[in-house]
């Protein structure tokens, strides 16, 4: 009897305030989509860091024959200079930071260059002599780039030292900003959602003041009086969060996996599995939102 009664009360409430219910659903949908997007962006950054930081190296480019750098005044790097650089990298104060060093010859560099840019017309105009030979250094901790860089920068025969990580940092910065933007929009929308849920519950409570008045009079418990209103808000918010999860799922499936994933394939992308990881949190957030709003409203409007 109780359950059936509460369910029918909820049904009446939702139908009576249909337009408000729909707006609650839409606002939670939009706000949680932003929250989810922010979460997915962060996951995307995490994935790329995991994948790329393993691969990034510090490249010590050695002088080619035609460099204008001061350290390359002597023309192409000599065997002695190479040995000096290697000795510097083997020194005990740098050694612990270095996992592995290998030497890339001009020919190897040319081969990988050709592989990477075989479709570009200008690639055919380059020769192996345009390439730098280089030491490729894998660090034990990618954060410790500075230590290694200091040892070799400015040495004769070194044209440039480059940390590949820096190239990514700019991209990560963009993604971080995007996360902030999505987060900010989410915050604004969440405030709107809370206010809207509050208003909806208030309207619902006011339109059923007669019923709740009688309930109080005949001794219905506070919980029993408030539960239908709480569930009303919670149901609307949950539907909104499910829509958000569905929207994110479709977005990831069609925009990222199917489109970006096939056109720019070398990046590890977030997948629908990640959406499913975020989903429980979004639904939880929706229920929490509704619960907070109802507690605030109901304590005022259905007082014993």
């Amino acid at each position, binding site marked *: *009897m109780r359950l059936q009664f509460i369910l029918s009360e909820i049904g009446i409430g939702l139908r009576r305030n249909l337009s408000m219910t729909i707006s609650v659903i839409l606002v939670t949908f939009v706000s949680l989509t932003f929250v989810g997007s922010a979460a997915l962006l962060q996951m995307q950054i995490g994935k790329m860091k995991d994948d790329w930081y393993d691969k990034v190296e510090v490249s010590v480019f050695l002088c080619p024959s035609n460099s204008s750098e001061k350290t390359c005044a002597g023309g192409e790097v000599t065997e002695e200079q190479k040995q000096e650089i290697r000795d510097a990298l083997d020194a005990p104060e740098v050694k612990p930071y270095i996992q592995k060093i290998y030497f890339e010859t001009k020919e190897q560099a040319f081969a990988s260059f050709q592989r990477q840019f075989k479709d570009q017309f200008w690639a055919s105009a380059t020769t192996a002599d345009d390439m730098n030979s280089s030491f490729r250094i894998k660090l034990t901790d990618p954060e410790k780039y500075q230590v290694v860089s200091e040892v070799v920068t400015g040495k004769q025969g070194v044209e440039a030292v480059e940390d590949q990580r820096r190239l990514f940092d700019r991209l990560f910065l963009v993604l971080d900003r995007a996360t902030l933007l999505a987060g900010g929009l989410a915050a604004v929308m969440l405030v709107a959602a809370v206010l809207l849920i509050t208003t909806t519950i208030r309207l619902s409570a006011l339109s059923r003041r007669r019923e709740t008045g009688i309930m109080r009079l005949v*001794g*219905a418990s506070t919980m029993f009086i408030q539960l239908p209103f709480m569930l009303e808000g919670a149901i609307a918010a949950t539907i909104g969060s499910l829509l958000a999860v569905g929207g994110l799922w479709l977005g990831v499936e069609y925009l990222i996996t199917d489109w970006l994933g096939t056109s720019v394939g070398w990046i590890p992308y977030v997948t629908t599995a990640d959406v499913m990881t975020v989903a429980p949190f979004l639904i939880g957030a929706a229920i929490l939102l509704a619960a907070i709003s109802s507690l605030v409203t109901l304590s005022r409007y259905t007082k*014993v």
Partner: protein
Amino acid sequence: MIRFENVTKVYARGARPALDRVSLDVERGEFVFLVGSSGSGKSTFLRLVLREERASAGKVFVAGKELGTLSSWKVPQLRRQIGAVFQDFRLLPNKTVFENVAFALQVIGKPRHHILTTVPDTLEMVGLAGKEKRRPHELSGGEQQRVAIARAFVNRPPILLCDEPTGNLDPTTSLGIMRLLDRINRTGTTVVMATHDDEIVDQMRKRVVELSTGSMVRDQSRGVYGSDR
């Protein structure tokens, strides 16, 4: 059943008290008329019994409990011991007579079989047998008040509070309502009825408590409406 010990109720700071040091004892099974002009404190008295308001000073005991110290989550339990009837009936317009009465049991979680047997019994007792499927607007005022009484009494509370139950009804209909309240009283239910209706009070010859600007000015067994008549 209901005991007031020096109860004072002040609504707004500095205002004249709505009830001023009222002491009163209503025994189990009594029928008490609460009379007095508008603003004399009758409704405040009833609201204090229902614990819709708390006394500013003094103690209110209802069904053995001191309401000043009763925690708010126990208030619903208290109200299940009290039926309440009002001048404006307070029925739900979109529910039938049966549903209106059943509502009082549904919301306190009574099982369906209990509702299906108790509600028809109560409706028959108040004289509404055969009108279960009507809606409030299809009934006369007297019948609507009977529905309200049925709803107040369906859970068999030991106390029934009536706030001018005949205020909207013509004398003949009022008499019918009074007979019904008398019958309920004779089942052992304590009835406290606030009223303006001197004819009814004079006819019934029950205990009369008169309030005037918040003070109790008369407590008379088998009394009449006006003390000077």
